[in-house]
């Protein structure tokens, strides 16, 4: 894992140096789901820093809330009118946005999907993202290995993102189940698994309030839940509060995905057992460099080997490592955390 990170960092510097030559006069757009989530705030910081370094003008746009599709379409239209060379996009509605994306590509703009793949994934020229399935698989494998033989009788709560099943939520969910050793059914949907160890799926909207309510609902179905998968760390913090209110916070294993600073701190405090950390800063700066490269010589970025997107890396953060699952310590996770 560390090797991959070091590798991408090296690649970053190399391509940065190459693009440095003639980045001037180039405009790029960054369109995020919201500008309030720390993940996107960090992404914007990364993009701004890289743009400044390369002498590119970067315009940032964002929807008002997660799911605000219209604002994103308007932002793409603005970028086309502006004559931008490239667009970095984290789409709210991954399939509906493709028409607007196609317009931009027809206008000769390089469109890179950041963090969230479009549906279909080849609707964008390239995708720079966390391998969300791998992120889920890591925490699933870690949870199963930590429980040992007890994993065979686990009572699992699945705290997902939203009923509309956005790809990022499905990938993490299904990755977790695969890592834990549960038969997936259709890997493009969560909730169709037959395994009796799964108590149920509930949606959290990815925040503390939703996490707590969802956990309470599942505890009402089965109070003996002992493994909790959560879509992200705020949802995990909410689930922990629900468990604490019935005095079960110490005998339940919570795993999560994100690697935000409060989340990593929660791993240190034992609230979360392990979390898969992703790297929004790197994602954004790589994206800006790819646009500079494209503007200079027309190179379109290529996906990572064996994947249909460019993997910006993921690492399991825990202080109780298990055999067979690579992980980094909380101290290392804290150095790289965002938000």
């Amino acid at each position, binding site marked *: 894992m560390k090797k991959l990170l070091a590798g991408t960092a090296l690649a970053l510097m190399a391509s940065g140096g190459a693009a440095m030559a003639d980045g001037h006069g180039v405009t790029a757009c960054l369109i995020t789901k919201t500008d*309030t*989530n*720390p993940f996107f*705030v960090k992404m914007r910081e990364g993009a701004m820093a890289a743009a400044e370094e390369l002498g590119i003008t970067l315009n940032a746009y964002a929807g008002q*809330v997660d799911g605000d599709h219209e604002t994103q379409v308007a932002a793409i239209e603005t970028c086309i009118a502006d004559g931008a060379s490239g667009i970095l996009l984290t789409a709210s509605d991954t399939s509906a946005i493709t028409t607007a994306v196609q317009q931009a590509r027809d206008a000769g703009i390089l469109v890179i999907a950041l963090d969230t793949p479009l549906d279909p994934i080849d609707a964008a020229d390239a995708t720079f993202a966390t391998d969300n399935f791998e992120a889920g698989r890591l925490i699933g494998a870690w949870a199963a290995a930590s429980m040992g033989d007890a994993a065979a009788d686990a009572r699992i709560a699945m705290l997902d993102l939203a*009923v509309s099943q956005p790809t990022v939520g499905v990938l993490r969910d299904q990755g977790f189940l695969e890592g834990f050793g549960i038969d997936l059914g259709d890997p493009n949907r969560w909730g169709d698994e037959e395994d009796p160890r799964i108590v*149920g799926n*509930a*949606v959290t909207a990815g*925040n*503390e*309030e939703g*996490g*707590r*309510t969802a956990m*309470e*609902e599942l*505890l*009402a*179905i089965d*109070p003996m839940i002992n493994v909790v998968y959560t879509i992200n760390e*705020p949802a995990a*913090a*909410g689930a*922990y*509060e629900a468990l*604490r*209110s*019935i005095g079960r916070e110490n005998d339940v294993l919570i795993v999560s995905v994100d690697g935000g600073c*409060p989340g990593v*701190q*929660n791993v240190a*405090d034992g*609230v979360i057992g392990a979390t898969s950390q992703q790297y929004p800063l790197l994602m954004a700066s790589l994206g800006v460099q790819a646009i500079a490269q494209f503007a200079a010589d027309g190179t379109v970025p290529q996906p990572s080997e064996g994947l249909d997107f460019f993997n910006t890396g993921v690492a399991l953060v825990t202080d109780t490592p298990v055999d067979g699952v690579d992980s980094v310590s909380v101290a290392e996770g804290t150095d790289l955390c965002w*938000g």
Partner: protein
Amino acid sequence: MNAQDDYESAAKDAATNVAEFADTRKSPIHRIQHALHVTPSLVPLVVLIASLVMFGIFANNFFTPFALTLILQQVQIVGIVAAAQTLVILTAGIDLSVGAIMVLSSVVMGQFTFRYGLPPEVAVACGLMCGALCGFINGFLVAVMKLPPFIVTLGMWQIVLATNFLYSKNETIRSQDIEANAPILQFFGTRFEIGGAVFTYGVVFLVILVMVLAYALRHTAWGRHVYAVGDDPEAAELSGVNVRKTLISVYMLSGLICAFAGWALIGRIGSVSPTSGQFANIESITAVVIGGISLFGGRGSILGTFFGALIVGVFTLGLRLMGADAQWTYLLIGVLIITAVAVDQWIRKVSA
């Protein structure tokens, strides 16, 4: 005294009772209509009991102390905000900024403690004042500037929410930090048990708040003024009610109650999270409407709102325990809202 001046004897056969609204229509439907007109919280109470019975029969684990008290815990935030919403709607207004005021107040409580190092008690007081101030701005714009409440609070919703995100930088304050340094912020999350049922101070606060407001609205001059202003502001003005002052007091009180909801929110989710409560305005209006409060003002009881919030909670958990898709909850709540307003229109005809 001659016979011509004996007016008293001339009037001796006249009716002596005071002018009254005699209910001469006696069909069962009219009786129901009349009963509902007199006691507007009756409909939601019946629906609440019916839904409890229905889910008790069809959903597993529903009639357990855990599930039943869980409903109370899950509706406490919406319930408190809906109490604030009720006051505003009784004056024929609407407050779209309730959720935003709640979140901003909780953020002020958290950030004042952790960013500026103020004693948590002072930070809580600042948070409560922040809520009351937002409410005052709403009230001033509605009562003095005569702007429509819908527009004023639509604007304030955006302003307060943006302030919240700008000020907090969307940073969450972790539950563990609050517990270690400022446990008073989590006061409303304190639990106690009565025979296997778990209650929190937040739930107790909700119940007390509803009781106090029910008393104030029914038995104090201020409460009657609130109804009068909602029913017909001009008539109220002519009868000597200070409409402006009453409206400002209602919006300020609403803001203050929202700030308390923000405090209770910290107790519920443990942490201070600027992204919480995004839909509290819609959820509170839902509870108010299902609770039988007339959106045209001047009619309804705060107990109805309490029942309305509980109905939403019962449906949400009950359907969940039956294993239904979450969308069914929204669909059924939509049906309830329209039914509630239809019943309200029907009751209004009793006076026509």
